[in-house]
Each structure stands twice: as structure tokens, then as C-alpha cells.
């Protein structure tokens, strides 16, 4: 398909309390097969999706957080985390999973997927997109 679009998946929901985070991640995984130019943004409570050390044993739900670490294998390598949302929640990048991808054009060097950006910077990224996915 020659028709490559810039897709932005916007995540603003915390995991587990509702199913939105998990089912939107399913769209990202399926969507990867369509080889579009994909980005993910984590804003507001969406940043909680990436927090490391999630253990769902006591609530009887599947822990889907390891899936984020696999996104690099699906060639989803642009993961924007909004700085203000993290700070407002008393979190830093160290509280989040370390997400990486391997760059085949650079001898499979491991590179960071997460880009910590301000709201103003992310608004500019939004401006360049063609399709916004919301869940």
C-alpha cells in the first residue's frame, strides 16, 4: 500500500479501572501490520499505563503492561510522554518502563522509544499528524 499516513494514538486513560487502555493497545498491535507511520502519545492519566512494576495477580486481570515493551518489535518506535502529565502525578521517567527498539539501519543499535516532550512540543507533533485515534 503506497498510501502511508501519519497515525497518532492518543492515550489518556489509566489501566485496569476501565478497559480503554488495553483495547486501544490491541488496535496499535493490529494496526502495525498496515505499515503506517505510527506514533503513540501518553497524556494525563495515560502516563500510568507505562508505570513499571504492575502486578495484577490480586485483581484477576491480565497484566498487559509487558506488551508495551514489545512495541519496538512491531516497529512502533515513537512513544511521546507528556512531561507536564508526569510531573503533575509526581512521576519521573524512572518510574516508567524503559522502552527500546532496535535500529536495523544502525547495526541494530538499541534506541529509546520514549520521547519526553512538553505539552507545547506535543501539540506541534499533533499538528503534523493525519489521523488521530481516540479511545
Amino acid at each position, binding site marked *: *500500500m503506497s*498510501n502511508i*499516513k501519519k*497515525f497518532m494514538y492518543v492515550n489518556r486513560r489509566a489501566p485496569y479501572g476501565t*478497559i*480503554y487502555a488495553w*483495547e486501544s493497545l*490491541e*488496535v496499535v498491535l*493490529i*494496526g502495525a*501490520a*498496515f505499515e*503506517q507511520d505510527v506514533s503513540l502519545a501518553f497524556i494525563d492519566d495515560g502516563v500510568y499505563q507505562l508505570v513499571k512494576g504492575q502486578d495484577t495477580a490480586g485483581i484477576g486481570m491480565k497484566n498487559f503492561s509487558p506488551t508495551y515493551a514489545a512495541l519496538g518489535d512491531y516497529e512502533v518506535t515513537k512513544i511521546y510522554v507528556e512531561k507536564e502529565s508526569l510531573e503533575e502525578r509526581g512521576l519521573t521517567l524512572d518510574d516508567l518502563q524503559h522502552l527500546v527498539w532496535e535500529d536495523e539501519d544502525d547495526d541494530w543499535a538499541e534506541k529509546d522509544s520514549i520521547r519526553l516532550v512538553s505539552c507545547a512540543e506535543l501539540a506541534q507533533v499533533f499538528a503534523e499528524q493525519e*489521523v*488521530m*485515534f*481516540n*479511545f
Partner: protein
Amino acid sequence: MNLTIQVNEGPYQHQASDSAYFFTKAALEKGHEIFRVFFYHDGVNNGTRLTTPPQDDRNVVKRWSELAAEHDLDLVICVAAAQRRGIVDDGEAERNKKDATNIAPGFRISGLGQLVEGGIQSDRLVVFGD
């Protein structure tokens, strides 16, 4: 323009499906094309024919079915979300050994790829949800 509409919530609990319906209708009246209406999350519950709303209330499901018949709309229910929530057509009943079906006329069950395809093929994606 060519549109894909996404509905993330079921009928009655939220206004999302009503808003999506009136938006879709208005777009059709203005001569725009609806590439697809995709029902996701609890939005799959818009596709059961077994609802019986009171006489003095609108029939959300029937309204979608009628709009689909009138304009040959493609109403797609996400299969993964439908399996979780028990929306079943003949194919799903056979595959998953269910003793009944409940899908409403004009709806079909298909994969998430249908939503992604909508994003690729349409000029705009408009999402209605909670």
C-alpha cells in the same frame, strides 16, 4: 468527503451512539460518503437485536439498522470486543459453539483491521465515546 465513524460506548448509558447517529445522518444528508461505522469497546452493544426499549424512548439499535438499510452503510462490530461482550452472529456462534445469535440487521462482525483501514481510506475519522 469520505468518513469513518467510531462508536466506543453502548446504547442508552452514554449519548455517544446518539451523537454518532445524528452526525452520520447529517453527513449523509450533505452528500458525504460514510466509508464505515466501526463499533468498539462497549460500542459493540449497539449491535444486538434483542433490546426492547420502552415505547416512548428511541430505539437506538433499530435506528442504526434502518439507516444502514437506507444508505447501504457498512456497520462493523469489532470481533474481539464482541466476543468479550457476547455479540454473536452465525459465524461466531459456529466457531465458538454458542447456542444463539443476537446480531441486529445491517451489522457485521469483523476484525480491528477494519478500523485501521477506515483510518487509511477515509478523509476523516470521527470518534464518539465516553
